[in-house]
């Protein structure tokens, strides 16, 4: 927790409790090199640095308290259990930066998992199921996106609704059943590492996607415009003031989000436990 607070304080103009005047006096009194040093350090003082420090601290703590923590097996399991969440977090980043929210991600994953289980139990070929799930994810995201941008509804209300709708559809599809007899060639994606490495498939997919998302978000005009949308005040409060025109990108943000969710539904469900309607509730 402590690094976070330090970061927070450093981001503001004056550290907590210290009036701005005294900071100025300090800066004036200290030699010029110290100011240069502080300026050079400035880019490193941010939220992410704090998070990284916390993560390192937790790993050190884990390593000191348990001999089982710093093993490759444990880190593989960590990757398996967090890979899908990490994949879903990527498109969610775009949505949150644009000033919106998507509460229906886990429900979409559940719906996608349930559909996979259902179609597999009806003896569909796995490849065809993959295509269907990707399309399903796009449709789910498109419904969210269109309701937010075209109809002009708040994303909070829309995605609370679709959370229920998608989770409900998962329940309707599977009922009280659990489907588990997936082929070994497929379930190995969920529990085995990429050959010759110790990296779970979901983490490998995440790394590739993270690079793509990072480049798009930070180095393209589209990515920067998402920041601009989030930074500008919402025009929604005054209906009819061209609210949809000013946010052209947000309709594809949720649409983009969904296929990866559907994809992570794929890697989430071939676990030995099988797929149930309450997956990821």
């Amino acid at each position, binding site marked *: 927790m402590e690094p976070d607070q330090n970061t927070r304080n450093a981001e503001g103009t004056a550290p907590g409790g210290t009036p701005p005047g005294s900071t100025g006096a300090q800066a004036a009194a200290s030699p010029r090199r110290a100011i240069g040093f502080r300026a050079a350090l400035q880019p490193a003082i941010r939220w992410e640095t704090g998070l990284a420090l916390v993560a390192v601290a937790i790993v050190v703590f884990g390593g000191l308290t348990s001999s089982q923590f710093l093993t490759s097996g444990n880190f593989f399991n960590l990757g398996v259990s967090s890979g899908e969440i990490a994949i879903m977090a990527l498109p969610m980043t775009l949505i949150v930066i644009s000033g919106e929210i998507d509460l229906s991600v886990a429900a979409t994953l559940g719906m996608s998992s349930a559909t996979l289980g259902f179609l597999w139990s009806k003896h569909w070929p796995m490849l065809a199921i993959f295509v269907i799930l990707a399309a399903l994810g796009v449709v789910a995201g498109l419904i969210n996106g269109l309701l937010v941008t075209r109809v002009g*509804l708040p994303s909070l209300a829309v995605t609370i*609704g679709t959370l229920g709708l998608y989770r409900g559809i998962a*329940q309707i599809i599977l009922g009280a059943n659990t489907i588990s007899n997936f082929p070994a060639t497929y379930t190995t994606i969920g529990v085995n590492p990429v050959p010759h490495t110790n990296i779970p498939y979901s983490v490998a997919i995440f790394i590739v996607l993270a690079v793509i998302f990072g480049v798009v978000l930070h180095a393209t005009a589209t990515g920067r415009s998402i920041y601009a949308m989030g930074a500008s005040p919402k025009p929604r409060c005054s209906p009819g003031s061209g609210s949809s025109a000013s946010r052209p990108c947000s309709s594809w943000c949720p649409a983009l989000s969904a296929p990866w969710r559907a994809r992570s539904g794929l890697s989430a469900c071939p676990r030995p436990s099988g797929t149930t309607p309450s997956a990821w509730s």
Partner: protein
Amino acid sequence: MSAALTERRDPSSPSARASSRKLTERVSRIRESGIIAVLIVFVAVTASIQPRFIDQANIQFVLSNTTVYALLALGETMVVVSRNVDLSVGSVLGLSAYVSTNLFGHSPGIPVPVVFLAGLGIGLGCGIANGLMVAIGRVPSLVVTLATLYIIRGIDILIVGGNEVVAQTLPASFIAIPRANVLGVPYLAIVIAAVIGAGAYYLRSYRSGRELYAIGSNPEAARLAGIPVGKRVFTAFTVSGGIAGLAGVLWAAQYQTIDSTAGTGYELTVISAVVVGGVAIFGGSGSAVGAAIGALLLATISSALNVLGISPFWDLAIAGFLLLVAISLDRLISVKLMAALRQRSSGVGT
């Protein structure tokens, strides 16, 4: 919404202002009677397929199922009207249900009102925590209550563990509460209806109630007009929490088996009920009575599925779908209404 519309009107023409207020009031009345019409048609169609749907036992069942949701919807209405949201109601209900009824096992012979007070206290505590973070911390209510949804549920799971409160430990007088009848109508439903009526009257006719609408219509304008925004929003969250605490005790009396999953997912149903009942998710418009009718509609649908032999797994999807329909419809109405008012104020309509 109505407050915002009347505010935005040209104040120099009182007659035009009166006419537009009449229009907005009429529209909101049509919106509420629309829900009642949907409810009546739905009941009629279901009853024509399966007459058992409107026999006394089933009506009692639906009414007592509605009580908890309608009560939660009252608190949620106060929060939503002020352009906030309380997602933590389900978790508060769960925590209160277990902790308060666990008192029966720990200290047998404890009076029932004390247990209700315990539930109320737990709920108020949670509501105050939400309210402080929203009103003083200035954190968006969505973020605060999404966090407390998980935090309070986490505390509940820590306290409950693998235990549960079972019916045997509950005194007969407690279990009898939801089952008492007056001429076939559950006694509890009448009490809750009175409570909702009082809440609706407060929101409609008291200064501090009206101020919640003003805050929801335009928070900045409300602040400039001297309304204590933070205080009102804090009160709304505190009331919502307290009501969720009370609802938890009632829930326990109704279901009698309380584990750590009690009330999971209730926030979705409650917000659906509120929005379907005509409370604008943008804040500033809607009534507690409408929200209660929304809760009644959802409980009726749920019971109809049961009576018609449709899997209860459809419940959630229908609640979600209705929520989407209701907010889309409200948006459409408000755009049309805005256009009509603009036309009037430019002198074409009057």
